[in-house]
């Protein structure tokens, strides 16, 4: 309860600071939107030249992309920790975090929130809606709950991977470019896994499970029953990977010695 109230307090403050520079925020939202549209244009143009992509049609791929945007938006809003190493370890900010009476990871999340990324979810809904309409998809009442579950699962998969990577900084504070690299690998999850070779498919499923953010959960809504097993693993993978990352984080915090004075 205390944590929830902290979250809303921070959100309120955050909105105030953003509202100070409205024009800047609008332009930023527009550029985010353009970025999402560019990926869509890619899919649209490619399907001007082919009917199916390893058994997936144009609208199915568009649906996957739309779905992907929703968990990714949640992740991007709350787990903006790609520069954790420089911001907190190298500058010694972690010392300040550790004196606060809430869990250190939660504190970092609160400080680095970027709520405007949530608008990406709206784009996601529009894209999914368009694809669902074209595909004539039908939904049951319980699909809503499954959707929420899958979205949370996907966001947790992303969060788990990035929190684990951020925790590496507790052991080695050398600057690495592993985070931007991971963002690029994450893009692999936007397309059906069966276009990749076996090794990459295995990695995307079990080691860096980005496939659980896009293609697997979408397969359920697209009624691709051969992928149902993977689809329903989504929340499980999310919880497993996120718990694992918290475990690594806590172990890291214990080892943390502080940098500088």
């Amino acid at each position, binding site marked *: 309860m205390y944590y929830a109230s902290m979250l809303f307090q921070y959100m309120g403050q955050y909105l105030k600071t953003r509202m100070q520079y409205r*024009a*800047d925020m*609008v*332009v*930023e939202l*527009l*550029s985010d939107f*353009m*970025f999402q549209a*560019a990926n869509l*244009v*890619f899919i649209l*143009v*490619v399907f*001007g*030249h*082919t009917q*199916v*992509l*390893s058994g997936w049609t144009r609208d199915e791929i568009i649906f996957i992309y739309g779905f992907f945007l929703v968990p990714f938006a949640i992740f991007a809003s709350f787990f903006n920790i790609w520069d954790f190493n420089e911001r907190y370890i190298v500058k010694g900010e972690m010392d300040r975090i550790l004196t606060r009476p809430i869990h250190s990871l939660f504190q970092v999340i609160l400080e680095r929130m970027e709520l405007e990324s949530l608008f990406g979810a709206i784009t996601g809904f529009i894209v999914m809606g368009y694809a669902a309409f074209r595909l004539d998809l039908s939904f049951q009442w319980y699909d809503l709950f499954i959707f929420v579950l899958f979205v949370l699962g996907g966001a947790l998969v992303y969060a788990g991977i990035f929190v684990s990577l951020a925790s590496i900084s507790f052991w080695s504070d050398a600057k*690495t*470019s*592993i985070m*931007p*690299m991971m963002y*690029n*690998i994450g*893009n*692999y999850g936007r*397309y059906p896994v069966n*276009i*990749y*070779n076996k090794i*990459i498919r295995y990695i995307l499923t079990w080691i860096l499970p980005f496939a659980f953010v896009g293609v697997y959960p979408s397969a359920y809504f697209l009624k691709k029953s051969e992928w149902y097993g993977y689809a329903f693993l989504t929340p499980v993978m999310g919880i497993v990977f996120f718990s694992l990352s918290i475990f690594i984080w806590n172990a890291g915090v214990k080892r943390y010695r502080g940098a500088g004075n």
Partner: protein
Amino acid sequence: MGKYIEMIRIRFLMMLAYRTNYYTGILIYSINIGAYYFLWSAIYGGKENIQGLSISQMITYVAVSWMARAFYFNNIDREIAMEIKEGKVAVELIRPYHYLGMKTMQALGEGIFRLVFFSLPGMVIVSFIFPLQFSTDVSTWGFFALSILFSFIINTQINLMTGMLTFFLFNVDGLMRSKRVLIDLFSGLLLPISFYPLWAQELMKWFPFQAISYLPSMIFTEGFKGQEVVEAILLQALWAVILIIPIQIMWSLAKKKMVIQGG
């Protein structure tokens, strides 16, 4: 002229000091190329060729586009915007060189560095992993070299203009991000221009973007032949000349309009 060459050299040495950052950069580009490799393989399926490009030409196109991007890409729009915001540009203006010329030379130093330490080794590594198709024709390589030089010039000119917009708009962060997306999409980095629907191709003819990535990559993959190669380079040269006009106009307006806050 000597001082400008010195600027290239200094920037090159500066980049050299931080070269380890670039090894992971090569890996990132390889990952991107890998994603498109699988995607394009699936898109081609059994097809022999799409829009005159075979699958191996397409993979080569993707690889060379990304590696060429390392050469022509630079952040001088961001640097100019920063210097204007911080008021540093006032000091730059009283120095005995042309501010925009100095920025261009710095960008060139950076570009040459990336060409030597990023694009060339990157291309070698990528060619081991993916089935690329290199031309054996020396003239193709010569035309390609000329062509990416023009890519650099045109991209830098666009960056100069974007950076200079800060004089008029004060904050162009969002605009710079949008510009980057636009260039990736409309320059042909993500998709060859010939893949777009015809109306879009017609429209893009009127913009300089395709001269940045599409034209050099098509020359490299030999998607263009004979007369087309020469026409492509002439088109690039034309754009490089045309873009000087808005730059000059903006620059003279900016000098009049400039407000330095603090400093």
